[in-house]
């Protein structure tokens, strides 16, 4: 129970940030995806099952907050949460390079998958143009934000453990 509440709090905080703050942190036309960062972090900390479940919830919130079709981000974050969670066993608490690498790959994969699904549904644009204007900048921006979000959120989610992630960053 004491593990569920921080997870729910993290998802709700991600939803509030996505609705209230993310639009004002946009660079060009790229809006950060806080819900994606929450899903990937929780998946790394908790594992594939919680990662997929939280991905499902966060994806549904993301789709409902927007005005496009409901379902694409739901599917993307569910699978992203699961696959990222598979890396959970390899996460060393003191390490920072591996989590960040996983975060970067996960955000890029999620952006590309979302763009491809929109394309399949007839709501997307030309792939390469979309890749360079939306997917890649979005992944870079989210990865940069992950530098701020991941250590704090991982620490918050695992307060009962002695997480010292990023202390070796220097």
């Amino acid at each position, binding site marked *: 129970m004491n593990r569920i509440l921080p997870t729910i709090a993290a998802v709700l905080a991600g939803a509030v940030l996505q609705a209230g703050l993310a639009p004002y942190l946009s660079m060009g036309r790229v809006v950060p995806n806080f819900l994606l960062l929450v899903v990937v972090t929780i998946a790394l900390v908790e594992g594939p099952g919680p990662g997929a479940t939280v991905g499902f919830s966060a994806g549904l919130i993301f789709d409902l907050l927007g005005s496009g079709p*409901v*379902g694409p981000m739901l599917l993307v974050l569910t699978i992203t949460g699961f696959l990222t969670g598979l890396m*959970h066993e390899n996460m060393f608490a003191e390490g920072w390079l591996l989590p960040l690498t996983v975060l970067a790959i996960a955000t890029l994969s999620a952006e590309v998958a979302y763009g491809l699904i929109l394309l399949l549904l007839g*709501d997307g644009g030309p792939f390469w143009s979309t890749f360079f204007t939306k997917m890649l900048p979005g992944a870079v921006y989210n990865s940069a934000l992950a530098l701020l979000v991941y250590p704090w959120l991982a620490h918050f989610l*695992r307060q009962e453990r002695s997480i010292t992630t990023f202390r070796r960053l220097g």
Partner: protein
Amino acid sequence: MKLPHPENPSNALGVVIVLVVASLVITTVWYREGDLGPIHKLRAGTHAVAAPLQATGEFVTRPVRGVLAWASDLGVSRSQLAALKKQNTELRSRVASLEEARQENERLRALFGFVQTAKLEAVGARVIGRPTNSWERVITIDRGSADGVRVGMPVLATEGLLGQTISVTNHSARVRLITDARSGVAAMIQSNRAEGVVKGSIEGQVTLAFVSRETTVKAGDVIITSGMGGVYPKGLLVGEVTAASQTPSSLFQDIKIAPAADLLGLEEVVVLTGTAPPTQIGGGE
């Protein structure tokens, strides 16, 4: 230190399969159900809850955005200043000629009784929310059904057409901008009356589609709404042609447009409530 594994991986695989199937079912239901379906209603509820959050974000970040805008204006270079002065001179001469046209237009309207077309009612609104993700160009305004706003109504800025309302709650509404990939506006080139459809895109590029190759189009041509389809009243300023080109394999010209209105920097808008909106929204809405 390695983190302990809290679960059985085979259980996780079962969970993800169930959730993926649920995702596909929800996507299918979304496309199949109507506007009054459960998922659409859930979205409307989410938007109603999110509107105050967005308004708070808009309010809290306004001073910061003001400072940033002021700082960016400090960077106006000499060349930009010269260009602006030149543009000002051109605009002054254009205003003079347009004034002549306006007076002539007024006389004609009086003559033919076109004043009836000005029966449009409007309500002013403040922008309280910006796009919540990178993939859409949708803003939120602080007027809703309680103020007479309905789905499908045109929304304007002082500079020109912004878009159309796509969902409405009691005290807020979402407006799809003309730059959104799902947007389509029946429009025409003012000078030669050639008709087409102004379309947005994922990348944010706005184009005028379906204009035949025989039509002469040049940069600077003004685009206005054509009134076809009945969604937008005729004559609303949409933007200006920035480039026009032709490819041998295409039936139509490739025309790029710069929207007249500053679509994301705006703070106040006008909703034309007097128009009778047909249900042309697209994108499953």
